[in-house]
């Protein structure tokens, strides 16, 4: 047996003789460029990387080839795929938006991996405005050959389509799509072919005036809209988490129907009245199981919206957490107007955690907090975050004093007052 001393004195290569799955674990943690370079190490390593199950062309790959013509870079990608020998389970490309890419180039990639691919991602990074999207059109039918696909993310095409006889991706669990235009029935057709789809994230500008989603498997749905008028989710009856993002210059959208969700998040860049997005009928039909509510770009100066939010809170008897981000605006602190005082009847809320982030104090916003504190006997923490880079000592002090004075229904409620110079937007909408 080799003694310890021998091992220390002679550098014996015992790594190369390890089984390929063990080597793959190391290779899998390397950038594609370093992975491929291992084939020059020795004859034993020559084809070792070609069985690594994951291939990522990330921004480091593209950065290392800066100055090389896009067509040459594309041929390197194809060359790697041609050398690769064995199942590719995960594949991703993070293209910079200026990269010369097109539908034909995309379609040429798919056959290399289709049989075994489980995770497929094509992300365009950089200043991705609509004009920067590279593919004129993408037909999702191309994915039909990817029978093992469970995750697909794609954000780079102008027009997304699907043929009516699409036969589906039976194992798909998660889909993340962004495009300019989508055919009105494409999503539903696509989803009817994906019986296991649990998580859908989709954003588009045109093509779908009345969006209907009826996938019974769907649990988490993130929807970013621009020009859509209504959303109907009645038949997606297992949905538990729904996020709706409305763009600044987009149309007014209303949620026609919604199953009983546990989490609901709304980003209202468009400043559309809350009652127009969530019609009163939904208050009684859809929020009785709601546990988490997040409102981003919520206008705390809007009396109508505040009153409507109180109605929503009253209709959500299971709600434990509320998160509000004030509308990003340059509005200055309002002057108090006693005649504008909002009045509530008391009720009993189950709220335990409340987080409010504002840029300036507002009279109605403070009334809302007063209402919450007075009617939430189970409240544990209320965090009030004053985010402003401006020197606002006076108003801030006044706000914190007001907060301290407010009557609290919960004896153990803790009120935290935070001041931060920059507004921190949540990176993920799935808080908790």
């Amino acid at each position, binding site marked *: 047996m080799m003694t310890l001393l021998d*091992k220390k004195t002679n550098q014996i*290569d015992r*790594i190369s003789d390890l089984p390929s799955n063990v080597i793959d674990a190391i290779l899998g943690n390397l950038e594609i460029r370093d992975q491929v370079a291992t084939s020059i190490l020795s004859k034993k390593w020559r084809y070792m990387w070609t069985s690594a199950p994951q291939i990522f062309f990330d921004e480091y790959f593209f950065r290392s080839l800066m100055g090389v013509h896009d067509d040459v870079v594309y041929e390197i990608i194809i060359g790697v795929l041609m050398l690769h020998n064995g199942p590719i389970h995960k594949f991703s490309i993070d293209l910079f938006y200026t990269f010369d890419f097109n539908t034909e180039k995309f379609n040429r990639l798919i056959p290399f991996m289709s049989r075994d691919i489980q995770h497929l991602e094509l992300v365009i990074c950089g200043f991705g405005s609509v004009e920067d999207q590279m593919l004129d059109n993408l037909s999702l039918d191309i994915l039909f050959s990817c029978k093992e696909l469970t995750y697909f993310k794609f954000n780079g095409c102008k027009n997304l389509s699907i043929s009516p006889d699409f036969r589906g991706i039976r194992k798909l669990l998660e889909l993340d799509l962004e495009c300019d235009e989508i055919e009105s029935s494409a999503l539903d057709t696509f989803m009817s072919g994906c019986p296991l789809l649990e998580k859908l994230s989709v954003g588009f500008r045109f093509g779908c005036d009345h969006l209907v989603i009826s996938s019974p498997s769907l649990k988490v749905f993130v929807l970013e809209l621009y020009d859509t008028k209504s959303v109907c989710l009645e038949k997606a009856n297992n949905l538990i988490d729904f996020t709706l993002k409305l763009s600044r210059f987009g149309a007014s959208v209303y949620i026609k129907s919604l199953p009983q969700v546990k989490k609901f998040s709304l980003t209202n860049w468009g400043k559309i009245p809350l009652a127009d997005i969530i019609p009163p009928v939904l208050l009684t039909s859809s929020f009785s199981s709601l546990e988490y509510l997040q409102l981003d770009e919520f206008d705390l100066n809007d009396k109508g919206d505040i009153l409507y939010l109180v109605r929503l809170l009253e209709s959500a008897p299971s709600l434990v957490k509320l998160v509000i981000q004030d509308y990003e605006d340059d509005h200055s602190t309002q002057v108090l107007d006693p005649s504008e005082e909002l009045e509530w009847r008391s009720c009993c809320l189950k709220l335990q955690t409340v987080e409010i982030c504002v840029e300036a104090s507002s009279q109605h916003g403070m009334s809302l907090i007063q209402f919450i504190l007075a009617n939430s006997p189970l409240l544990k923490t209320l965090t009030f975050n004053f985010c402003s880079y401006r020197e606002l000592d006076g108003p801030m002090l006044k706000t914190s004093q007001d907060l301290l004075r407010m009557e609290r229904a919960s004896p153990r409620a803790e009120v935290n007052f935070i001041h931060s110079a920059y507004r921190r937007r949540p990176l993920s909408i799935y808080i908790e």
Partner: protein
Amino acid sequence: MAEEVSSQMNSLSISETNPSSSATISLVSGDDIVFKVEPTIAKEMETVQSFIDETDGKITTIPLPNISSHDLPYVIEYCEKSIAGKITKEFEAEFVKKLNNEEVKELFLAANYLNIKKLLDFLSQVIADRIANKSVEYVRRYFGIENDFTPEEEAKLREELAWTFTGVDPDDEDEN
């Protein structure tokens, strides 16, 4: 290191199993040092655990000829943290700071031999980090790989894969 180990050392003789001592497992390193560990630690090491299971728990002294008394305490330390649920980024960063390249490789081999999935995954990442963006020569030295290509074969390969060399770190002889 020897002083630290001595506290855990028992006698070199391999004891007969009796019910009172079956609470601990004795791991015997390649250089015949005995490390007594809790059975929960042994569970983390699939190879050890299956050995115990195969003998219905009668044998509690397990020879590990491929692992030295220098490396085994590191493995035990990691397993202890792992069962305590205390594997954090900070712990891993501290843990890896103590290890030179040779030790990382030895621990990787040990983790593979003992079949400790978490440690193996972690060390795969460590090794990958240490050879990332390095030249072919550096990686050969790192692993102790003998280049068995003819100069012509290597030149041809290097030409085909020229794109993989752009911007690699300059070699630093002192790193190993």
